[in-house]
């Protein structure tokens, strides 16, 4: 029996352990995207619309942080949450919550940097019109974020792609505990090193399929809603 065949068997038979892993991975990464969007989008819009000393340094920093190594983020969050760390008393290290926090930190820069670029471009187009309508600073941010909604979907997808694909951060702060904090990526790493290639392959296939499906759905939504809203 070939390795590929066994992998398909696992998926088609609805292996319970496999689906628990898939569910946890999705829950963690989607929560992280939602949180990072709540923080990163207003942050990106704010940087796009304000001028202050040191702004270009911040923009460069934000762009550079898109490439933060997940293991470094994992380590930083680990130090924060470990028993002797400043947030150690919360006791959430090695839980899905810690994994969500780490991934949120990891993708805030991605969403913020892409949002800043999008909003800044749109602001160039909207500036005169919104100034003539006497729109407040908060109103401008809200208007631009709403009117850029289709482009910002790409920022969310970039964030999700990053979160779903990374191993390092969830491995460090989650601990890859079977049935509790094991995600698709950490499981693939583990099963591969154990030589359990069918499960590793199965998980890898599922991971790729999910990322594809989410991107296809987002693309479809974008095309459909752009047709609706112009």
């Amino acid at each position: 029996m070939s390795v590929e065949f066994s992998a398909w068997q696992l998926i088609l038979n609805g292996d319970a352990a496999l689906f628990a892993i898939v569910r946890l991975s999705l829950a963690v990464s989607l929560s992280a995207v939602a949180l990072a969007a709540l923080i990163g989008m207003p942050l990106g819009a704010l940087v796009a619309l304000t001028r202050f000393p040191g702004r270009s340094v911040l923009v460069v920093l934000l762009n550079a942080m898109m490439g933060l190594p997940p293991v470094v983020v994992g380590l930083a969050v680990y130090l924060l949450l470990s028993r002797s760390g400043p947030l150690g008393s919360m006791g959430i290290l090695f839980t899905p919550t810690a994994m969500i926090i780490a991934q949120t930190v990891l993708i805030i820069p991605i969403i913020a940097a892409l949002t800043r670029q999008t909003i800044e471009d749109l602001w160039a187009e909207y500036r005169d019109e919104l100034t003539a309508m006497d729109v407040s600073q908060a109103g401008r941010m809200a208007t631009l974020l709403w009117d850029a909604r289709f482009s910002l979907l790409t920022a969310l997808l970039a964030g999700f792609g990053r979160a779903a694909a990374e191993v390092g951060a969830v491995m460090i702060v989650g601990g890859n505990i079977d049935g509790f904090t094991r995600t698709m990526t950490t499981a693939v790493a583990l099963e591969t090193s154990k030589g359990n290639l069918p499960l590793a392959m199965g998980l890898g296939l599922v991971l790729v399929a999910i990322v594809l499906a989410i991107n296809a759905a987002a693309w479809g939504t974008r095309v459909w809603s752009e047709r609706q809203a112009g």
Partner: protein
Amino acid sequence: MRATVSDLPLVLDGVSLLAGATTILDRLSLSITPGAPTLIVGPNGSGKTSLLRLLMGLAAPTAGRVSWGGRTESKPVRRAILFQRPVMLRRTAAANVAYALAQAGTPRNERAVRVAVLLERVGLFDLAQRPARKLSGGEQQRLALARALAREPEILLLDEPTASLDPAATRSVEEIVLMAAQSGIKIVMASHDLGQVRRLAGEVMFMVRGALCERAPAAAFLDHPTTPEAAAFLRGDLVI
């Protein structure tokens, strides 16, 4: 309330606008008061758009002073502007007007009715639910007019709003502008279409190289220009 504050008279006092070493507007002193439409006429590059942006408060003068109803603070209170290519918000036509009403401080419960009235006024009632960006150029310009009128302006500035429209669309825009003028809104409109000047203008401000060359009632300007530049422009010569 807003009604007690006025943006008129709009006064320019020794206003110049420079971009680097280039003079865009050259020591303009003028006053705009309620009355028949004023058309700003002049060749391309004579400073019409820059003047309108200054009148709206979108640009600050390099020298001199602009004041609205005696106030020098540029916050647009009772004035609105129509750009040559207005930006449509990525929403329906009705939502575009509702947005302008919200920004102008119209109470939420009055907005739906006002949106309907304004869309009716510009002849877009049937297209209310159409995405604004899917409208034709003429329809977009009329929607932008509805947005501008939503501010209940005392003065409406227009920057060659019909420059890229066909005659039918131009006519419907002009009809809305004339209706606005008749309702007491002061119209200040840039144009380089002399036919349009004849159709709309009460008075003309003729600009050359950023300076106000001649200001006169429309009929007098069109039939008996007093400056050689204006005469040349009316003959169809290139005025540089």
